[in-house]
């Protein structure tokens, strides 16, 4: 039975390999198919300018999804990402001089310091989540649900229903400026994705993330500090959300309550559609990039073919469902192959 691989026929081996790669191939094939479909249906879709649009539209999601990938690889979940992003963005606005007409109580700091303090704010929120999950033992699903509400509450108290418009210049550039034809926010997202990938692939911490997600008990028995790994992943997720939240304020041109509400589902969808296993231990930033692009192309393409915007909501739900089915199916294939051996 250990010889199974060598005894298989070439064709059988190919089929085996393809099935093993289902979680990578499915999103890739989907992306190609979507691009082909929209290119055929709309002349304005396959243009360089629109490519820039798509990339710009997905950048914020991509940054949030990087942190979320770490968490999901550990077989945990973070439902607070959008709320933490929103709270961090609002905190940044509060630390910046606002026009008196906005009626927001501000505590202006120099730009760089304001960014740092806001980022520390998201770090603190992530730290609380990590403590709740790893020290107290609250399931991440519930703990981050509580954090969702807490972060929303903090944001709401800070703006009290008003809208702030100013952010530090540095962020204004990163969020809404561009170098040549390339928007800065795309560059930032690219850097975060690259960093996320390098850490996951080439560092010990990255390896521990995969091992903890693959078999938590075995990781523990190997002397891995499982709680530290899971806690760090949650903190990373909060930091990514915080960064995305600050960029988002510049990108949207304003900071207000609930402006990130779509990003929770988008980020989770991106990770799952990309093929990172919901059960942990498999996938990575490469998958997340695919997932982000699939969602971005879908969103953008549906606009180009003038899809009813209400129907769009339903379509996105159906796409997520399909991705979930493939995700679970790929997992089953894998465990079946394993037990057959």
């Amino acid at each position, binding site marked *: 039975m250990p010889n199974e691989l060598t005894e298989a026929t070439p064709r059988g081996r190919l089929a085996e390999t393809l099935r093993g790669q289902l979680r990578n191939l499915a999103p890739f094939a989907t992306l190609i198919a979507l691009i082909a479909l929209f290119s055929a249906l709309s002349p304005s879709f396959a243009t360089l300018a629109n490519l820039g649009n798509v990339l710009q539209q997905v950048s914020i999601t991509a940054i949030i999804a990087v942190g979320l990938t770490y968490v999901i690889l550990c077989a945990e979940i973070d439902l607070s990402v959008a709320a933490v992003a929103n709270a961090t963005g609002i905190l940044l606005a509060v630390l910046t001089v606002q026009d008196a007409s906005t009626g927001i109580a501000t505590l202006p700091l120099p730009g760089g310091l304001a960014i740092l303090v806001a980022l520390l704010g998201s770090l603190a929120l992530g730290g609380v989540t990590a403590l709740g999950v790893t020290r107290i033992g609250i399931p991440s699903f519930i703990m981050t649900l509580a954090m969702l509400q807490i972060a929303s509450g903090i944001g709401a108290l800070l703006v009290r229903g008003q809208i702030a418009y100013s952010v530090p210049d540095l962020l204004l550039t990163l969020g809404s400026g561009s170098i040549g034809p390339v928007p800065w926010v795309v560059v930032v997202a690219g850097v975060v994705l690259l960093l996320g990938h390098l850490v996951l692939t080439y560092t*010990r911490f990255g390896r521990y993330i995969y*091992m903890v997600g693959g*078999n938590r008990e075995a990781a*523990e*028995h190997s*002397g891995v500090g499982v709680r530290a790994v899971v806690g760090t992943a949650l903190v990373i997720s909060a930091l990514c959300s915080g960064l995305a939240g600050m960029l988002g304020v510049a990108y949207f041109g304003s900071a207000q309550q609930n402006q990130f509400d779509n990003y929770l589902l988008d980020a989770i969808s991106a990770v799952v559609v990309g093929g990172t296993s919901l059960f942990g231990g498999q996938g990575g930033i490469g998958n997340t990039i695919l997932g982000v692009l699939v969602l971005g192309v879908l969103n953008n393409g549906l606009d180009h073919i003038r899809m009813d915007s209400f129907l769009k909501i339903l379509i996105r739900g159906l796409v997520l469902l399909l991705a979930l089915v493939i995700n679970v199916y790929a997992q089953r294939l*894998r465990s079946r192959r394993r*037990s057959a*051996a």
Partner: protein
Amino acid sequence: MVSPGAPPRLELSGISKRFAGVAALEGVDFRLAAGEVHGLVGENGAGKSTLMKIIAGVHAEYEGEMRLDGRPVRFRNPREARDAGIGMVHQELSIVPALSVAENVLLGRQPLNRLGLVAWRRMRAAARAQLEALGLDIDPAVPAGSLPLGLQQMVELARVLLSGARILILDEPTSALSPPEVEWLFALLDRLRADGRSVVFISHFLDDVLRVSDSVTVFRNGRRVGSAAAREAGKPWLIERMIGAGHERLEESYSEAIPLAPRSRAPVVLAVEELGVEGLFGPASLELHAGEVLGLYGFMGSGQLDLARALSGKLRPDRGTVRVDGRVARLGRGTPGAKRAGIAYVPESRRAMLFAGESVTRNISIAVLERINRLLLRPRQERRIAEGHVRRLGIRPARVDLPVGQLSGGNQQKVALARWLTHLPRVLLLSEPTRGMDVGAKDDVVRIVRGLREQGVGILVVSSEPETVLSLADRILVMRRGLLAEEFAGEAVGKDRLLAAA
């Protein structure tokens, strides 16, 4: 009492059962009279539990015939068996911890009021009355999970009895019970016998079996090898039949005595003082010397696995101290703390120690990553280390890139051991290191353990199989009901003496 000529309460004839082609039972006959307590003994895997599960309707596929009060029956599921008056208390309890004692006792039979809702007060009163009738003083309102394990077992027993079982099957009922609870159980069994109910009593504790049973039956390798009246069968009679004469089995059976080493004079690497976890084991104290293999033997549920788990940092101890090379090991900090102190652990379940989907290389390197790199991984060095172990340990197939889940059980065990061979720990805990392996793989494991001993590692081999400790250990400690009961060193010891001590 049995009226002459009446059929026995339960009669099985020619029962055979196979699992995936492997015979678990072969042509077994078994009779259970009304008002009889029948003891069932045999080693792990001898077929006792399989037979009982057939009687209780858990296994519906089998050959042979079963008669209840003379009428042929064939249960397709546990429910049919229960309806016919057969109740089984499994070794793994099936009470619902979050529900109250009353709800557990009356599970599925809660009294209802006129609105179809549960009549709580009536239910508590009924439960209390029924528990008292069994001689149990337990508050029916408390959650069953808050009771000590022994009382939980009694609650489950009460439930099965109160559901009207005429035949009661008890699988290892005394292993979790304290001495007074055992007395209560035996008194209860006497009452059941007087009521004309029949009891099958499965246990490793031979003294218990002989004391409480009217008759005893011994199983070995899926066959019934002897039955006798309990007062005529003594402990030696049972042990002799459980083990079998040496020439009957192909594998070395250790019915011959194995010479053990005298106590080692080497320095102590692991000193355990009064270590304990409430309700599981202890307080237990022991010393392990450098270059010594200490066997820790006990029946399943006697606490030896939990002791190993506590030493590994997986289970938080409530009391006691552990020293490695004289330094206190901080076990409260979990497995990383134990690892830092120099304690390595290979648990009994491969699922709990290996990453099935990951390569052999990654499974081996996981424990040494912090030694071979600072920040960035060094895959080539990981691979070289893994290849060295694969070659030295003869892991087959000799490919380090294969997912470890595709290897055979014995080879998986070697991979798990290899994890700790790059940088040797001071203390290696091996839980059931040869369980379920073929002879060749077992020999390999024995060789690896001997090699580690030569290099001065202190090794603790924990097992509920006498063969495992006898084949590996220099010295043997026997654990009984959570406590260290006996030590064997510097003399020849056979399986019979281990069984008798446990």
